[in-house]
């Protein structure tokens, strides 16, 4: 709603035009991208849980990485996906990428996997594969639990999955050692927990954007999730654990100072609010 123009210094400090705020924020981001002040990143228990869950996958089982995200959350979920893929390659765990919602994610994740695979000389179809976007959400998961080759049918490149070397012996949910859900969308975790983790006891871990992660702490506390990556911080922690500092670590440098700026602005606004209340005359010039 439109407001009267501010009178007095404290009134003006309560109504700093938003363009100045945007400029300040942009300045902080550019400053940290060009001249980063690197601070140490210590992995949290939730992140260590994800790393340990990957480590504990038996040799004869595979990991499913469900990449239900799209380009909008890529700054958070992209590095999370990359760090998880790095961990899988380093710990020599075979994995399959797939996607139940936001079809864009499986292509973006595929590009990430191809890039990382080159560093480890990993072969498609042997060390990793991409099942592609699968329609049906809950119905698909119920079908996967019973018969993976029939439910998945073809991979991202339209080849039958049964022809991929790593899929030999992968029959049903008992062949899955871990499911990692990387998502910026609400509702996907409940499907995995209810249809796969709950009935079959398949280990489950996750990675979320920072804004939605607080809603999933109950599942971490109850033990339904082995671990959780929280936003870019979780991705940075995972990058640190796999010794591949990348874009998430850079994002954390920027985010640190951006948070500080927001806190400073809130403090200025509150100081101005209280000072303005103490000096009622200022508003009446």
């Amino acid at each position, binding site marked *: 709603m439109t407001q009267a123009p501010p009178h007095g210094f404290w009134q003006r400090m309560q109504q*700093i035009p*938003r363009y100045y*705020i*945007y400029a300040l*924020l*942009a300045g902080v981001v550019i400053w940290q991208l060009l001249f980063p002040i690197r*601070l*140490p*990143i*210590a992995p*949290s228990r939730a992140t260590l849980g994800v790393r340990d869950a990957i480590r504990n996958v038996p040799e004869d089982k595979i990991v499913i990485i469900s990449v239900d995200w*799209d*380009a*909008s*959350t*890529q*700054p958070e979920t992209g590095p999370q996906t990359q760090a998880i893929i790095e961990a899988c390659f380093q710990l020599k765990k075979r994995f399959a990428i797939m996607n139940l919602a936001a079809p*864009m994610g499986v*292509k*973006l994740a*595929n*590009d990430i996997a*191809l890039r990382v695979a080159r560093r480890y000389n990993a072969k*498609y179809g042997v060390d990793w594969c991409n099942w592609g976007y699968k*329609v*049906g959400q809950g*119905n698909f998961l*119920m*079908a996967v639990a019973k018969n993976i080759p029939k439910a998945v049918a073809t991979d991202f*490149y*339209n080849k039958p999955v049964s022809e991929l070397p790593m899929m030999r012996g992968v029959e049903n949910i008992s062949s899955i050692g871990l499911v990692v859900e990387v998502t910026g969308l609400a509702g996907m975790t409940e499907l995995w927990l209810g249809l796969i983790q709950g*009935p079959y006891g398949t280990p489950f871990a996750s990675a979320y954007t*920072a804004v939605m992660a*607080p*809603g999933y*702490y*109950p599942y971490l*506390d109850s033990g339904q999730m082995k671990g959780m990556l*929280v*936003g870019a*911080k979780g991705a940075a922690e995972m990058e640190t654990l796999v010794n591949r500092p990348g874009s998430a670590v850079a994002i*954390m*440098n920027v*985010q*640190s*100072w*951006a*948070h*500080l*700026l*927001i*806190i400073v*602005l*809130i403090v*200025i*606004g*509150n100081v101005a*609010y*209280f000072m303005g209340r103490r000096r009622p005359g200022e508003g009446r010039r």
Partner: protein
Amino acid sequence: MSRLFAPAPTPRLLAAYLVIGLVGSVILIYLLHRGLGPRGRRWLIAVVTFVAGLFYGLEFYYPVHNRKNFLTDWIEPVSVMIAVIGAFTVGLGIYSLCQVHGRNVARRRPGWPNSLAFFVAFLAMLVFGLWSHYTPVGEPAPKVLPWQNGVYEVLFNGLFAPLQTATFSLLAFYIASAAYRAFRMRTAEAALMMIAAFIVMLGQVPVGAWITSGIPLTSPWAFFRLETLGEWILNWLNMPAQRGIVFGIAVGALAMSLRVWLSLERGTFFSEQR
């Protein structure tokens, strides 16, 4: 049952099914439209709503043996049918867009070049997306792509994905201005909320750990390290509150579902019964 939902064995039979289905649907809808008045239509909607809800509810609650009951095998084909019906509405949406923007271009209304841009973008993505999808590329990461796949890559990775990311990044600026404007310690609860917000914000970034890095991890005061305090707030304050919210919303959704299933909401959606 599996024969009922099996694909048609020959193209001719498939074409026959499609024609019969289309003609039959048109005749059925015409007869329903002419034969049923407003009361009849409402009754039909209520019956279809009840049967549809009953199907899923019964399949979920009916006792199972070996994870199945008599309705379980029907779930997948029914879900596929619903998805197909839903897919038809994409055409409706496209029709609405083309109608509105087509009118803007035809009548040269202010901003008509933007509507023209819509058509160019829509057709480009449609053509190159489908073309590249049906062009086989062989190995997973070929060094040289066919040109139409290259155009699709430029449109997708070069335009669409960065535009989405850029739009999402606007939120950072909006959050800054909204937080500055809205966070005022007008009451004690607001002050408490703000303090908690500061702690969690700083606890989630390395600078917060740096600010309190002087407190040794082994000291009794280690709880007051910002990252520890932030995690405590998320695990011990936030989590029970989230659980409570989930309870409340779940019960609200149950009551709403019952009202919709039993068509008790009819008066609010459509004109009241007379």
